[in-house]
């Protein structure tokens, strides 16, 4: 089994045509839920999809919560960097909402949906909302599943990657997913300039 080729094909094939069906809010794949392994902060990851067939993993240690935000509760502001979508209110706390796809340089998130799927990240004292296409679920990844970042990964996304992980997508197949580094995301130069 060629573990490298398969995800590359997926990325290349899918990344250039990020059209998606509006109804696919949740990935059909049971993601990492299938193995009923013990889920801890150390091994738990949140799997989110950016667009069709492209999913990434976020470490649970830095995820505060996930929410579905109605688009009218998002307040757009002028003169902000392109990835910043606007301000949102979460339990009397005002958060920035950032387009994760844009931030990774993989196009733009489709914003036609009435509801934005938001992952609230907390890195130290900084809290940030990132908008994704869909939240797929939680997976537990063993240490031996981590592999080095393959060369097919777009360069714009490299600064934000921690590594890659092989995740079983079904009984017989598996996919290679990017694992993002929330610290890098928050320290992103695009956001920093603005700050």
């Amino acid at each position, binding site marked *: 089994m060629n573990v490298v080729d398969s995800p590359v094909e997926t990325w290349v094939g899918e990344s250039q045509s990020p059209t998606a069906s509006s*109804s696919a*809010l*949740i990935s*059909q794949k*049971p993601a990492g*839920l299938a193995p*009923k392994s*013990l*889920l*801890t*902060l150390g091994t*738990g990851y*949140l799997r989110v999809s950016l667009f069709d067939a492209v999913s990434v993993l976020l470490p*649970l240690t830095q*995820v*505060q*919560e*996930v*929410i*579905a935000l109605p688009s009218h509760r998002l307040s757009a502001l002028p003169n902000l960097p392109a990835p910043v979508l606007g301000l949102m209110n979460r339990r009397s706390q005002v958060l920035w909402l950032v387009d994760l796809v844009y931030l990774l340089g993989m196009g733009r998130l489709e914003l036609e949906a009435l*509801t934005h*799927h938001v992952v609230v990240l907390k890195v130290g004292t900084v809290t940030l909302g990132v908008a994704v296409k869909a*939240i797929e*679920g*939680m997976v537990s990844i063993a240490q031996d599943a981590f592999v080095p970042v393959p060369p097919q990964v777009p360069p714009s996304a490299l600064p934000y990657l921690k590594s890659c992980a092989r995740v079983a997508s079904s009984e017989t197949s598996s996919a290679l997913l990017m694992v993002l580094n929330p610290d890098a995301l928050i320290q992103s130069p695009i956001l920093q300039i603005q700050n």
Partner: protein
Amino acid sequence: MVDQLDRTRSQSTPLSEPPGLSPRPKPAFPPPQKKPSKSWLSGLGALGLEKKATLLAIALGTLPVLGIGGLAYVVADRTISDQITKAEQSRSVGLSDKLNRYMDDRFSDAQYIAKQPTFANSRIRSTLTRENKDNDLTAFIQSKTMYDSVAVFDLEGNVISQSAGPALDNHRDRDYFKQVLSSQSPFISSPTTAKASGDRAVHIAAPIFDSDQKNIIAVVRLRLPLAKIDDVARNFSGNGEHYHIADRNGTLFLASDVNEKDDIDRNISDIFPALKQSITDRKNNTLPGLDDGKLYMLSYAAFPQLGDINLLWNTVITLDDTVAFGAQRSLLTTILLGTLGSALGTGFLAAWLAKRGTRPILDATRAVKALGEGKLQTRLEVEGQDELALLSGNINQMAGQLETLVKIQTLSTDRSNSMARIVGNLRRNLDPDVILQNGVEEVRDFLKCDRVVMYRFNPDFKSGYVTAESLGANWVSAKGELIEDPLTPDAVDRYKNGRVWTLTDISKQQLTDCHCKILQKLQVQANIVAPIRRDGELIGLLCAHQCSGPREWDEEEIDLFRQLSVQIGYALDQSHLFEQTEAARGAAQKLSEEQRSQKEELQMQLLDLLSDVESASDGNLTVRADVSAGEIGIVADFFNAIIENLRTVVTQVKSSAAQVNSSIGKNEAAIGQLASDAMEQANETTRTLDSLEAMTQSILNVASNAQAAAAVTRNAADQAQQGGEAMDATVVNITALRDTIGETAKKVKRLGEASQEISKVVSLINQIAMQTNLLAINAGIEAARAGEEAQGFAVVAEEVAELATRSAAATREIEQIVSNIQQETSEVVNAMEQGTTQVVKSSQMASEAKSSLRQVVDGSRQVDELVQAISNATVSQVDTSAQISQLMKAIALISTRTSESSKQISTTLRETVSVAQDLQASVGTFTVN
């Protein structure tokens, strides 16, 4: 006259009533003797006037009396009956009232004793001994003598005290005792037979109350024998009247009539059945009724309630009917007798008056009837001066006039008969002398006078002869004498006008001398003179003389004398006419003799002429006759001229006949040619007729073909019409189909809308599943953060997330299904729209087909009309060719006729030739030169 009247009366059958003499009896008053029936009017009409008047008078007299009498009877009867009834009722009510009051007093007595302190006051009661009490009660019944016993009982019925008399036993079982104890009030018992004495009595009982404690302590009882009540009521009996008193049950206990003692203890309803209803109703009433088979006036009265007591007893008073109504009956008998007596008296008086009033009318009727039967001597007796007397006088006058007229008529009839006989005798002869002699004889016989003469005037009227005379015995005859008695022109004129002159007595009348002398000579004392006229001319006088003495000529004799003179004149006219006729006949005979001799002379001359011209008949036209003088000479001259002319004519005929013969010979050939040509023309015409026949036949064929074509076309038009109707039906069906498709499309669209609703709901479910998933993830995050302890929670969260995922999958399936539905729906809608379009197209095509069919129909109709026109044209052609054929036949006929005429002309010409030759031959017989 009275005899006659009596005779007519005895003869008289019932006189038919003269109409209008008496008024018809009105139907309101029919004769009482006669029963009304259908024919009573006609029966009445057959009655005589006297009987009718009598009947009417009796009816008028008696009916009112009878009516008033009847009315008075009815009114009096009713009034008296009412009065008697009321009197009886008041009697019975009075009796009941009186007895009621009497019993009320008895009631008061009982209460009086009950309130006596002797019994009511306990202290006084106990202080008094039995003897004291008995004495009190004895004293009481001595003062009130109607009671025969008074007693006081304790509540057990034992005697406490009693009036003098046999000792009483225990009264506990008595009815009135129990009644008083139970009702605690006074009581009057029904009359019963007392146990102690055996008498019938009424018991009055009252309770005694203790004056202090107000409770009943004893009962007082008074006994009242019925004899006492009888005493009270006695006034109500006698003079046929009896009373009966019954208790509340209707049981009779008291009766005044000794005969009715047996009825005691019987029920009064049974005794008086007529009153049963009144007794049951307790209603006062009075009516007649039977008791023991005898008629009584029964009066019933119930006892009314009076104060505290209500006895409910019953009273009946009977009164003998003869006593009650005796006075009334005698009064009514009087009225009846009086009425009948008055009616009889009035009737007799009326009948007498009617008879007396109608007698003169009846007498007059009988007299008129006798007159009508021809007994003109009948007269009526005139009495008084009223209208009836006037009528009788008029009838008498009328009878006298009738008698006179009949006498005059008889006389004049006799005279007319003798007149007719005389005229007949006169007209029997034509000789004037005989006529005159007969005339004077008849006149003298008729007038019974002494002499009648006929005096005939000479033409100057100065004198005349007596030409005829009839003379009685011993008188001077005047016959044949010349009498010089010149008439003045006035007298002539008078006589010409038919005047008759009479002389009654010669000694009393002034006459001219000569006339007087003549009359004296002839011994005439009275005379009558009438003119005799012949053909209107005065020729003489008819004089009748009375020589025995003066005579008064009456009008009728004068008139008859004049008529006789006229008749004699007429007879003379007749004889004169006869003489003239005889003379005319003689003249005519003489004239015919002369004519015969002339005729013979003419015949002789004619024979001479005939012998001269005899040879002319043989054709010799050269002979000439001798022309002599006279008519025959003229004839001979004419004959000669005619023979000469004839000779000239025969000469001309001879030459003309020769010319005709030659001319006809020339013409005969030409006429034969003409006949053969005409024959040829007739044959040609016949051939043309055959050709024309063939042409007519072909035209008829064309006509029948055209008819067949028309039938085919009409059939096609019918088919097209049916096709159009089928098309209409198709269009209607298509329209219905279109509507159905539209309905279906609407329903399918509604289905699509419903599926959209479903997808909205599915989206909502999806949203919820997504939220649930997020919450599950959050829960998992929190569980992971919590560490080992929250592993169970994490598992639950995972399961929730899984459930949410499955929900989402399910919703996706639903979405798929819904989208399939929507897609199929839209396909169906599209198909429907296409179907609708096709339907519209179909209906357009159908209407186009229909219009095409209509064009077909129109076209075939036009074809039909054209064929019809062709048919008509052929018919007219057939007519025309028939006319042509007719004409051709006429031409052929004419040609044939021409040919025949030519032949006839030819024949005639030949005959003419032979005639001309005959003429030549016959003319040749005449000798001309």
